């Protein structure tokens, strides 16, 4: 026996058989066996989310419950954001940062109640994150002990679906007697969905209006099918990891292992707005303060290819002179914009909107232009919406 994690069997969500019966093409992802696409194909799934509604199984995401009287104090120490700014039913995008400021994971913290928080983490990082969170229960003389905080890994007992697209509210509302229309961006509430007790959050990873729905895994099949039936009128399709990736790339949302990594700090990734030094000390604060005062060395940029071709992760970014200055972290077609786009890190001096750069793809040098991110931004909603957490 070896301890190679690659030898571990892939895990499956409760919807595995459902995906197979729908013709989903199952692939390994973050230790899980997940659908990369269904017969409609990645592009059709992508367009369904931009123009109608799509349903994703995201039961592979890690869910950690933080509860007890010390929860707020603990999360303030563990993460760089100001968790005290959250009201009940509000969510915050944040990080787990190491002492050197590098990103261990990007997370979403939901405040369910004063002493109850839900932390959603990436599938592939769940075990590392949970160990990190446990290790910081007894930390640096902060007076926080495991007696004041309970950490519970909710999965596999609880699963998660994402319903995303302009018709997501109409679809979801047909499955719930609770009025969901007032639920603002980055807000969460309890509701019955398809007859099941659920947490409904107005969050997502597509750049479109959408919801993420957590509930007991025994009900996964029933809730999935009810949502698909309710969305039929809007052309709902089940969506896989392929569309999830093209959608998040268009919306310039980072993917751990690509734009975010242990070797990347939030300043480099353009996500420093999360960091709140004024709230008091936290893990990684010293290192991040040093980055703030000396300035980041490199920056994440958006690139649009101006010639045919596709840049992918790992392709080199060059100056027109041929000097290599960085590497693409993600890239692919933008089905909505009908352009070829990419993200990557370059020295700050070269991160200038409009600058002409090149990407080397299989020995060919393709012209590209630095463009503002996000690549895609949906038209503003007619109603005024609650502003996202700062």
């Amino acid at each position, binding site marked *: 026996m070896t301890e190679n994690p690659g030898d571990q069997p892939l895990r499956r969500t409760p919807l595995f058989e459902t995906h197979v019966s729908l013709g989903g093409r199952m692939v390994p992802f973050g230790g899980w066996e997940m659908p990369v*696409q269904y017969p409609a*194909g*990645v592009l059709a799934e992508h367009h369904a989310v931009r123009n109608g509604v799509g349903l994703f199984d995201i039961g592979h995401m890690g869910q950690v419950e933080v509860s007890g009287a010390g929860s707020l104090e603990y999360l303030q120490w563990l993460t760089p954001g100001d968790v005290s700014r959250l009201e009940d039913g509000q969510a915050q995008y944040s990080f787990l940062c190491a002492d050197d400021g590098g990103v261990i994971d990007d997370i979403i913290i939901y405040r369910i109640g004063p002493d109850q928080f839900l932390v959603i983490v990436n599938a592939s990082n769940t075990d590392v994150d949970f160990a990190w969170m446990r290790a910081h229960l007894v930390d640096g003389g902060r007076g926080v002990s495991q007696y004041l905080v309970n950490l519970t890994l909710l999965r596999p007992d609880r699963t998660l679906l994402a319903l995303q697209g302009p018709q997501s509210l109409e679809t979801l509302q047909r499955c719930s007697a609770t009025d969901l229309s007032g639920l603002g961006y980055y807000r969460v509430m309890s509701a019955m969905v398809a007859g099941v007790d659920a947490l409904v959050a107005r969050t997502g990873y597509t750049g479109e209006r959408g919801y993420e729905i957590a509930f007991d895994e025994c009900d996964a099949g029933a809730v999935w099918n009810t949502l698909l039936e309710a969305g039929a009128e809007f052309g709902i399709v089940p969506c896989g990891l*392929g569309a999830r990736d*093209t959608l998040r790339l268009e919306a310039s949302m980072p993917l751990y292992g690509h734009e975010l990594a242990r070797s990347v700090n939030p300043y480099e990734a353009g996500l420093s707005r999360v960091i709140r030094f004024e709230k008091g000390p936290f893990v990684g604060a010293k290192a991040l303060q040093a980055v703030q005062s000396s300035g980041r060395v490199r920056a994440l940029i958006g690139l649009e290819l101006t010639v*045919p071709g*596709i840049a992918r992760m790992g392709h080199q970014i060059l100056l027109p002179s041929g000097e290599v200055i960085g590497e693409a972290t993600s890239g*692919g*077609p933008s089905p909505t914009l009908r352009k070829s786009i990419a993200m990557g890190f370059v020295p700050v001096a070269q991160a200038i909107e409009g600058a002409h750069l090149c990407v080397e793809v*299989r020995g060919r040098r393709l012209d590209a232009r630095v463009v503002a991110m996000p690549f895609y931004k949906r038209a503003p909603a007619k109603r005024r919406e609650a502003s996202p957490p700062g």
Partner: protein
Amino acid sequence: MSNPTDCRYTREHEWVRKDGDTYVVGITHYAQDSLGDVVFVELPEVGASISEGASFGVVESVKAASDLYAPLSGEIVEVNERLRDEPDLVNHHPYDAGWMLRVRGSAGASLDGLMDADAYAVYLETVH
């Protein structure tokens, strides 16, 4: 979709069809289905030479790039220009409108080493 009987097939899932004194090359239904939505096809210039078994281009799906391998040696006399704007022809019409190259075979070029439709169907059973 059944594989046309007037084509020969490679183990890398290209097809080649003799058309008068030239050969037409594309990828099979199985290949396009495995790739998913094709978004870009990188082909050589007219006049370039290709050699049997060597990569002559790349087909990009949404998720990944895959090499294309020449089923025979020869000189390219035409490439499918429509694929520039309609790469999805490879998905929808892999054996006709989604063709890629027209090749004049080198002296002695032969398709004898390639599979016919029946042999390719058997081969597909083994790769599933």
